[in-house]
C-alpha cells in the first residue's frame, strides 16, 4: 500500500495540471467566486422616476423612494426616455406619478401610481418591487393619518384604524437576506465537487499510461486514499472561508460536516471510477463526467426549491452527491441539527455503495490491453 501511495505522489508531482487542481486553482477560483458576490446585499439599484405631477406630494414620494436602501431613483422628464432606459437595462424599475396625482388624492379620487419592474432580472426585480411598494406605502401613511384625524378620530385611534394588524416578518436563518450566505456556499460546493471529479478522473486516467503488477482494485483504493485528504482540505478551506473569514452564522460546529464530506468524496469517486472503467479513454472519461456533473448546481435545490421541481428532476438530483451534501450542510448551518442526526442523514449516501458491484466486476477484468500500450505524452500542457 505504501508503495502505491508513493507512486501516486510521484505521478502527482509530474503533472502540473493535477498539482494545480489540488492546490492553487481551487483556492483562486473560490476566492474569485466569492469576490463576485461580495456585494452581498443588493443596494442602490437604479430606478427610473418619472414625475409628471410635480407637486409637493409627488416630491415627498420621491424622497421616500430615494431613502430606500435598495432603490436609487434617476429622474426622467419624458416617459419615452425612461422606457428606453428600461429596455436597455440601465434601470431595473420604472415609477410613473401621473398628472394630477396630488389633486386626485386630495379630492378623494383614486389615483393610480404605476410601477413597472424588470421581471427578466428576477432577483433584482422582485427585490425592487417589494421595496418600492414598501417605500410608497410608507409615504402614503401620513396622508391617510391626516385624513383619519380630519374625520374626527383620536390620534391613537387613527393609528390603529390605519393598520389594525401590524405584521412582523422574520427571515429565519439568514436575518438580513444576505446573498453571500445564501448563494456562495452552494456555488463553492458545486465547484468543489467539480474539482474532486476532475482530480479523480485525472488520477484514474494515469492508469491508462502504465500498468504495474498490482491488481487494479488495489490501485483504485490507493488513489482514493491518497487524494481524499487533499480534497477534504479544499472542503475545509470552504468552511474556513465561510465561517471563519466571512463569519457567516452557523448553528452547529461545521466539523460535524466532515463525515458528510467524506461520504460525498466517496460517492464522486465511485461514479468517476465506474465511468472510467467503462470508457477507458482519457478525453472520453473527462467529457462524460463533465456532462454528468456540470449541471449539479441547478439540481442542488437552493436557488429553486426541490419540492417544486418535476419528479424527473428530483430523481436526477439524487444521482448527484452534492445534493445529498447540501441537505446536510443546510440542516447543520441553518437548523442546527445535532451531530448524531447528521450522521443518520449519511444513510442517503448508501445507495452509491451499490456502484461497488459493477466496479469490482470491471476492475477484476482489468484494463483493455490496447489502451495500456498507449503512452500519455509527457509534454506539460498549458
Amino acid at each position, binding site marked *: 500500500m505504501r508503495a502505491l501511495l508513493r507512486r501516486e505522489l510521484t505521478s502527482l508531482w509530474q503533472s502540473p*495540471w493535477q498539482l494545480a487542481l489540488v492546490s492553487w*486553482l481551487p483556492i483562486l477560483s473560490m476566492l*474569485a*467566486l466569492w469576490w*463576485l458576490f461580495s456585494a452581498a446585499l*443588493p443596494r*442602490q439599484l437604479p430606478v427610473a422616476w418619472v414625475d409628471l405631477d410635480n407637486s409637493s406630494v409627488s416630491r415627498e414620494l420621491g424622497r421616500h423612494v430615494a431613502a430606500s436602501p435598495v432603490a436609487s431613483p434617476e429622474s426622467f422628464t419624458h416617459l419615452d426616455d425612461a422606457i*428606453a432606459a*428600461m*429596455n436597455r*437595462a440601465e434601470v*431595473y424599475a420604472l415609477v410613473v406619478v401621473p398628472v394630477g396625482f396630488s389633486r386626485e388624492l386630495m379630492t378623494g379620487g*383614486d*389615483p*393610480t*401610481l404605476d*410601477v413597472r*419592474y*424588470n*421581471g*427578466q*432580472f*428576477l*432577483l433584482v*426585480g422582485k427585490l425592487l418591487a417589494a421595496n418600492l*411598494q414598501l417605500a410608497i406605502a410608507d409615504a402614503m401613511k401620513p396622508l*391617510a393619518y391626516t385624513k383619519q384625524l380630519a*374625520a374626527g378620530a383620536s390620534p391613537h385611534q387613527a393609528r390603529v384604524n390605519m393598520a*389594525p*394588524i401590524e*405584521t*412582523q416578518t422574520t*427571515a*429565519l436563518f*439568514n*436575518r438580513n*437576506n444576505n446573498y453571500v450566505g*445564501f448563494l456562495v456556499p452552494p456555488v463553492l460546493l458545486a465547484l468543489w465537487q467539480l474539482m474532486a471529479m476532475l482530480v479523480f478522473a485525472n488520477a484514474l486516467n494515469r492508469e491508462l499510461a502504465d500498468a504495474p503488477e498490482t491488481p487494479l482494485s488495489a490501485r483504485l483504493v490507493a488513489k482514493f486514499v491518497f487524494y481524499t485528504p487533499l480534497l477534504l482540505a479544499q472542503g475545509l478551506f470552504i468552511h474556513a472561508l465561510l465561517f471563519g473569514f466571512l463569519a457567516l452564522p452557523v448553528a452547529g460546529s461545521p466539523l460535524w460536516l466532515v463525515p458528510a464530506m467524506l461520504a460525498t468524496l466517496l460517492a464522486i469517486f465511485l461514479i468517476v471510477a465506474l465511468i472510467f472503467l467503462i470508457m477507458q*479513454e*482519457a*478525453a472520453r472519461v473527462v467529457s462524460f463526467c*463533465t456532462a454528468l456533473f456540470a449541471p449539479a*448546481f*441547478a439540481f442542488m435545490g*437552493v436557488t429553486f*426549491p426541490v419540492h*417544486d*421541481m*418535476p419528479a424527473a428532476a428530483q430523481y*436526477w438530483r439524487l444521482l448527484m452527491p452534492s445534493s445529498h451534501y447540501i441537505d446536510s450542510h443546510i*440542516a447543520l*448551518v*441553518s437548523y*442546527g441539527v445535532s451531530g448524531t442526526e447528521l450522521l443518520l442523514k449519511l444513510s442517503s449516501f448508501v445507495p452509491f455503495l451499490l456502484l461497488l458491484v459493477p466496479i469490482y466486476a470491471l476492475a477484476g477484468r482489468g484494463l483493455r490491453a490496447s489502451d495500456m500500450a*498507449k503512452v*500519455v*505524452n509527457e*509534454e506539460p*500542457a*498549458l
Partner: protein
Amino acid sequence: MSLLRLILCELKAIVSDKAIAVTLFGGVLFYAVLYPLPYLHQVPTEQALVVVDLDNTSLSRTLVRHADASPKIRVAAGAGSVAEAKMLIASGDFHGLLVIPLGFKRDLLLGKGATLSYGGDASYFLVYSALVEGLVSAGMDAAKSVQLLGLLSRGESFTGATLSLAPMHLNAVPAYNPSLGYIPYVVPGLFLLILHQTLLIGTGILGAGQWGGSGQPGAKGETGESGYWTQVSPLKLLLGRSLAFGLLYLGFGGFYLGWCYHWYGVSVQSSLGQMLLFALPFLLSTLFAGIAASCLFSRRELPTQVMLLASMPILFVSGFVWPLSLIPEPLVLVSKVIPAVPAIFGMLKLNQLGAGFAAVMNEWLILWGLAAVYFVLAFAGLRWRRNRQ
C-alpha cells in the same frame, strides 16, 4: 487540398472523435433537456407553512384559511407553541411560520390592534419570498375586512370607508417576464453559455489531439486522413476549421435559439435578421477564440477541464443572474474578453427586453473586436504549432 475537401475532413474528424461527439452532439442535446428540467414548474407554489394559532377564534381560523387559499402557501401543520414549530421547521419539511398571538380577535374588536408574526426559511430565497408574499396578502386581506368593519361601525358610509382604506391604487406589474417564471430568467443566458462552452471544448479537443499527435482514436487513423492538417497552410486550416464548426453551430444555434426558445416559451423580440446579425460576431469570435485556445493544449482531456471550471464564473459574471452593477468593476472589465459575456447581455437586451439593435451596438462592436483579436491569435497559434511540427 481544396477548401471543400478540408471542411469535409474536419467534419469527419469531429464526428469520428467520440470525445468531441459526446460534447458537441450529446452535450448540446442532453443539456437542452437537462438544464431547464428543475425549473419546468416556473414558480414555487404551495410552500409548507406551520401555523401556531394561540388565539383559536373564528377570526384566526379565517386568517389561516385565507393563507391556505393563497396559491403560494399550503398550511401543512399546526403547532401548539413556537418551540414545537421550530422543531418542525428544523426537520426540513416545512419552510414557513405564522404565529397568531393570544387575544388576536379580542384586541382587534376592542380597536387595540394586534401583531402577526411571519417567518420564512431564508436559506432558500425563492421559498422565503413566496411565503412572505402569500402571507402578506392574506394578512392584508384580513386587515382590510377588520378595518372596514371598524369604519362602518363608526357610522361611515360604505363608499367612504372603502375610499379612506386605500387612498391610492398602486399598480405594480412585472415587465418582460410577466409571470416571473424561472425558465425565462435562466434559459436565454444559459443556452448561449452552453453553445459557447461546447464550441470551445470541441475546437480544443480537436486541436489538442492533432498537436499532441498521440494517435488517439478519431484524431487520425480512423478517418484515414491522417495528418491532413499538416498539408494545408495555417490560414487555410483556420478558415476550414471555422467553416466546419461554424456550419455545425449554425445548426445547433438554430436549434437552441429557435426551437428550444420556442419550446420553453422564452420570448424572442428581435427579428430573424437582427438575431443573425448579432449572432454572427458571437459565433466568429467564439470560433477563433476556441481555435486560438486549442493551440495551448496538447492533451485531449485538458480543454474540457479548463472550460468546465470556467463555466460557473462566466455564468455569474455575465450579469443576468447577479446584477452587473454589484459585480466588482475589475471582474466586469476582465470578463469582457470572453465572447459569451457581451453576447449574453446583448442577446438579452435584443430578445427579452426588446431594446432594438441600436441598444446593443456596443456589445456588437465588442464582439467584432474580439473576433478580430482572436483571429490574429488563432492564426499565430496555428502557425506556431505548424512550425513546431
